[in-house]
């Protein structure tokens, strides 16, 4: 279906850079069961990224892009920060917003898309850093949730302002000393997942990106619930290895250490009652679909 919509003009096909040819040939657009397992075997929706080598944000990006249920009809809204370095390499429509404004822009965008394309499902996904989500953009973040805007907010929580060299953020841990915050944080990490729940989000998850299958499940749920029911919020620990003094290959272990049951990124999930019901219906339909496909395969 969707590949029909991204055709290169045959007469100019040969001059297109190979990235674009690959995208049309072997991206997973339109594949119903797309997911993290497609990474490496089909065209990924991200090119080489320009983040620091080994930055966990790059893993997070890959898993998220592989898990979007409807990438060809998804618009992502980004904000300034390390994440914004990646968006130019992403093969999903995206908008760069003024720092902090991302949830306001996404609100207007989602509404405009519903008016412009009433018969087509269009997903909007915000992806911004903790500084953008929790500090400078907190007003816009919360107001979108209060208004029950139907889109997903993903926060890449690296617990500081990484792109500008390490200033204190609301999501930084108490006592943490950063390169540009030498006194140390004087108050606790803001409990945004709980605030999200109280502000009307229907699905809230706080976790790391150490497990691709988990990220896939969480992203899929959050986008589908936002589409049908109301706002969702995902807070992902994507440690800034540069700022916490880790080497490129140590990001994964850092995430594993921080998701232990007593740690601040132990998996936490909140699902509202309507969202629970929706997920149960979805699971039942999925089971039915898979059983039918199996039966069909058996007959063939």
């Amino acid at each position, binding site marked *: 279906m969707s590949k029909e919509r991204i055709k*290169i*003009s*045959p*007469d*100019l096909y040969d001059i297109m*850079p190979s990235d674009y040819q690959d995208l049309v040939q072997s991206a997973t657009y339109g594949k119903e069961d797309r997911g993290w397992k497609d990474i490496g075997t089909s065209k990924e929706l991200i090119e080489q990224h*320009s983040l620091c080598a080994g930055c966990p944000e790059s893993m997070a990006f890959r898993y998220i892009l592989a898990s979007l249920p409807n990438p060809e009809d998804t618009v992502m809204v980004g904000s300034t920060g390390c994440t914004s370095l990646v968006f*130019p*390499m992403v093969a999903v429509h995206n908008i760069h917003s003024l720092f902090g404004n991302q949830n306001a822009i996404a609100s207007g965008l989602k509404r405009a898309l519903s008016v412009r394309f009433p018969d087509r499902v269009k997903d909007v996904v915000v992806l911004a850093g903790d500084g953008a989500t929790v500090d400078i953009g907190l007003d816009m973040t919360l107001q979108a949730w209060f208004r029950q805007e139907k889109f997903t907010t993903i926060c890449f929580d690296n617990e500081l302002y990484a792109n500008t060299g390490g200033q204190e953020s609301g999501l930084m841990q108490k006592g943490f000393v950063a390169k540009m915050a030498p006194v140390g944080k004087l108050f606790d990490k803001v409990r945004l997942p709980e605030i999200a729940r109280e502000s009307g989000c229907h699905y809230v998850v706080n976790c790391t990106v150490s497990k691709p299958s988990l990220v896939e499940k969480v992203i899929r749920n959050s986008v589908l619930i936002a589409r049908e029911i109301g706002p969702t919020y995902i807070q992902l620990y994507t440690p800034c290895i540069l700022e916490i003094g880790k080497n490129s290959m140590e990001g994964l272990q850092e995430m594993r250490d921080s998701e232990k049951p007593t740690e601040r990124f132990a998996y936490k999930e909140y699902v509202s009652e309507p969202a629970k019901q929706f997920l149960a219906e979805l699971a039942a339909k999925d089971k039915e679909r898979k059983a039918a496909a199996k039966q069909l395969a058996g007959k063939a």
Partner: protein
Amino acid sequence: MTQYRVLPGPEHFLPPAAASMGIYLPNPGEAHINGVIVPEEKAYEEAARQFLMAQVPTIFPGPLVLWAWNEKAAKKAAAVRKLYEILKECVQPGQKPMLIPMPDYRPKYPKINPEVEINPNHPNLTIWHNKIDCCMFIGVHCHQANLSLKIIRGGTSCYTVAMCAQAGHEDAMLSFRDASVEKILKLGEWIRKLKGTVKPRLTTAKTSASN
């Protein structure tokens, strides 16, 4: 006050938008050369002459023709290809026509490969690298074309032609409007017509690069 003219640069780091200098767009049936409104026919001749004179005449097709959004886009792409083939047929030894796509508008700096693509936010990388001294934009959305044409005028001496599907571009040195398959092919006819009558600038080693 002297009248501003849209001429090959390098003008300076931030050239003014030609519109702000009093250059206005042609009406249907007209075109502009250096900001002066002319009958369209005259612009075909001048564009053909510029192409035949250039050492590296280049066509930059943008997303509106590279992607087959609809049948019309694919037909325009076929016409662009034809134009390129004609150009190759009509140039003299030493001239090197090119066809380089602008598939995307997102700033890819610094990862662009100037041999295979051009990006509107830093078009000069492709122009400098390939020593392009005459280029034509086609199928590039207006806001990106204007930005890019201005950057080219600012930092290179490349002659710019816009085959615009809307009302034309003040920031190009020569602009058509209401581009269609017929107009693209008509430019091809003019190139054929002038074949062998225009002396290419082969001797000037320094063509487009300003630094």
